[in-house]
């Protein structure tokens, strides 16, 4: 009985705090994405600028580790039974990737463009396992080009 109560409390705490944290994080992501709207990050390797206009090239990278809350982990484990889209994990990877991209752009400083952007995700520890921490890391990296005015 007490076990069940404990479990329900955990789920409730996870749901409330997790939803709040996610909403807060998304608001901050939207805000910063607007700030960096003039700094495009592209996956192409070359851009149309003439070579002699490019002043410097520099590797920039950013990463973020995001963990999932208890409620979402519970719903995801239910999904494991029936199959289908695991919505709760979609927002998790989305947040991690966008945060990593934003941190990469923060590192780029006054560059004009970031070319050859790669995004990678990796899990640290076993994910979605109660015994260890369910979290994933997203890293974004690219080459920031600074131009002569």
């Amino acid at each position: 009985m007490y076990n069940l109560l404990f479990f329900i409390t955990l789920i409730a705490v996870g749901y409330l705090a997790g939803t709040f944290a996610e909403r807060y994080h998304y608001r901050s992501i939207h805000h910063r994405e607007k700030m960096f709207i003039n700094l495009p990050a592209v996956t192409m390797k070359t851009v149309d600028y003439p070579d002699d206009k490019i002043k410097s090239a520099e590797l920039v990278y950013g990463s973020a580790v995001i963990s999932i809350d208890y409620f979402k982990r519970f719903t995801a484990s239910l999904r494991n039974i029936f199959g289908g889209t695991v919505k709760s994990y979609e927002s998790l990877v989305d947040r991690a990737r966008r945060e990593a991209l934003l941190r990469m752009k923060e590192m780029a400083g006054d560059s004009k463009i970031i070319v050859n952007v790669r995004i990678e995700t990796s899990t640290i520890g076993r994910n979605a396992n109660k015994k260890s921490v369910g979290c994933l890391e997203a890293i974004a990296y690219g080459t920031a080009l600074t131009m002569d005015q």
Partner: protein
Amino acid sequence: MIITNIETVPGKNIVEHFGLVSGSTIRAKHIGRDIMASLKNLVGGELKGYTQLLQESRQQALDRMVDQARQLGANAIVNVRFSTSSVAQGAAELYAYGTAVRIE
């Protein structure tokens, strides 16, 4: 040392290739951070301790790669890639590799 992840350094000519250089580091998180992270795992959100740890280790992997390139006499590294793998429970390997070159 100029580091890029495209095949060339824009605006410069590559005069000499030195081949592959790489740097790696394996880090484990300490138990205090682990406990904090598992608490944070209830409510979700960013694990700042882990982010910082990985950032530091990635910087170290890059530094090792740069050291290796410098020993070869290179002044730039092109086509750099990162990769991460978890080798053991609670430890992550961060690996950076690229091609050392000399530019004009």
